[in-house]
């Protein structure tokens, strides 16, 4: 009984880790498309803002402000409308975890 419970917990943890890994990879894949302008891993070499290490709440707020038009932009209002609130969170998770160069 104890054994099977332990096994269940272990399996549960394995499952969670695998599912988490998929989420992380999906976030990584989403964010990869941003690097043309914002640099690899969000480390822009100039011009466009550095996203690496950006605070999560700030990131999500900026995206919402781009979408609503509260923050004017040349390009980002268009990209912001193309992503969902859920994707803002994933992107925020990814970029906040990147090291600034």
């Amino acid at each position, binding site marked *: 009984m104890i054994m099977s419970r332990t096994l269940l917990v272990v399996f549960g943890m394995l499952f969670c880790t695998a599912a988490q890994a998929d989420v992380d990879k999906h976030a990584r894949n989403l964010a990869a498309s941003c690097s043309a302008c914002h*640099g690899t891993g969000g480390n822009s070499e100039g011009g466009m803002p550095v996203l690496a290490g950006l605070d999560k709440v700030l990131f999500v707020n900026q995206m919402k402000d781009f979408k609503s038009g509260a923050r004017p932009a040349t390009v980002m209002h268009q990209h912001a409308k193309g992503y969902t609130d859920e994707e803002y969170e994933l992107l925020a998770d990814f970029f906040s975890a990147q090291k600034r160069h």
Partner: protein
Amino acid sequence: MSFSRRDFLKASAAGIAIGAFPGLAFASGELIKKKGQRVVVVGGGFGGATAAKYIRKWSNNKIEVVLIERNPMFISCPMSNTVLGGGRTIDDLTMSYEELKKKYGIKLIKGEVTAIDPEKQTVMLASGHLKYDRLIVSPGVDFMYDKVEGLNESVANISITHAWKAGAQTVLLRKQLEAMPDGGVFAISIPKGPYRCPPGPYERACQVAHYFKENKPKSKVLVLDANPDIVSKKGLFMAAWKELYPDMVEYRPNALVTKVDVVSKTAKTEFDDVKADVLNVIPPMKAGAVADMAGLANVDGRWCGVDFLTYESKVHKGIHVIGDAVSAALPKSGHMATSQAKVCAAAVIELMQGKQPDQNPTIANTCYSMVSGNEAVHVANVYRFNAEKQAMISAEGGGVSAKRSELEGAFAGYWLKNILNDVLL
């Protein structure tokens, strides 16, 4: 580094030497013995170089990557129209492949693929062959010269350029413009879509006009478009032509060029003959020749059908196609090629590890066009996978600049810097 005609001659002489004496190298032997899991990437442009780098990066260097590229250096097609305008030189757009080798351990083979055997999972070069577990083909485009009577590759290289791959022809076209007398005519012919870089020809008209305005103000730019209307950023280009280059740029829709005369620099359309001082004919395009070697171009015999979760060919399992060669409702741009390359790289790693690839690929594209020396306009879009349609569909909110600006001109320069770093460094 200096990018001279001599470098090109040296480079092509090296190519010929390998082709003529394959026995001196490895005959038909295995070029690099395959030990572990291996991906071979054919073509080191925006798509191929990105795929090679990201497979190494995202597999923690577990998967061996061999990149085959025929050119000695990477030359960016994006922003190469500014070489014509005078804002950049070709050297500014030229990068080395060295970092991909040093930093990521990518094995680089300089050469041309001569055949692909999908059954034996083998790629043939003049110098020998390579085995692969998965092959990524990023062949870019090739030109359908047979659609324009009188035009062929030699003519394009020395006289009537297309300059639609950045390099020697870009430099030649700039020299032709410099040699042209004030009061002359530059004519550009645009093929029917789809073609590489939808806004590119109209940007080129702007860049040539910019050069004329500063140096040869009595000259004209004549745009012969085979399409019924301006394909991309229409209002922005029309405004630029009218406001920045009044009476200099003339646009003619439905002007399909079917024939050229090299000696008199004349382009023949259905309606009339157009004589120019500098003639720039962009022929219709199809997937690069490497795609044909494995029969991958299954859409109209021109473009390659793929599964958008993995970019695996619809024709052959184990072969993936990315970039301009893909048949899709996606713009054929450098940024798009890198975005596709990353989706493909991630999926290839998952497949090689027996896992399921990301089921919701969502990618972005931003294309800047320089309309003068320092002002740019853009088009931007997010694209997401639609399972029902098995296609990439444009998401909400995409669009173009409200107006041209110096701010966007500056961003265009930073875009180039950041994307080149992402692809090659």
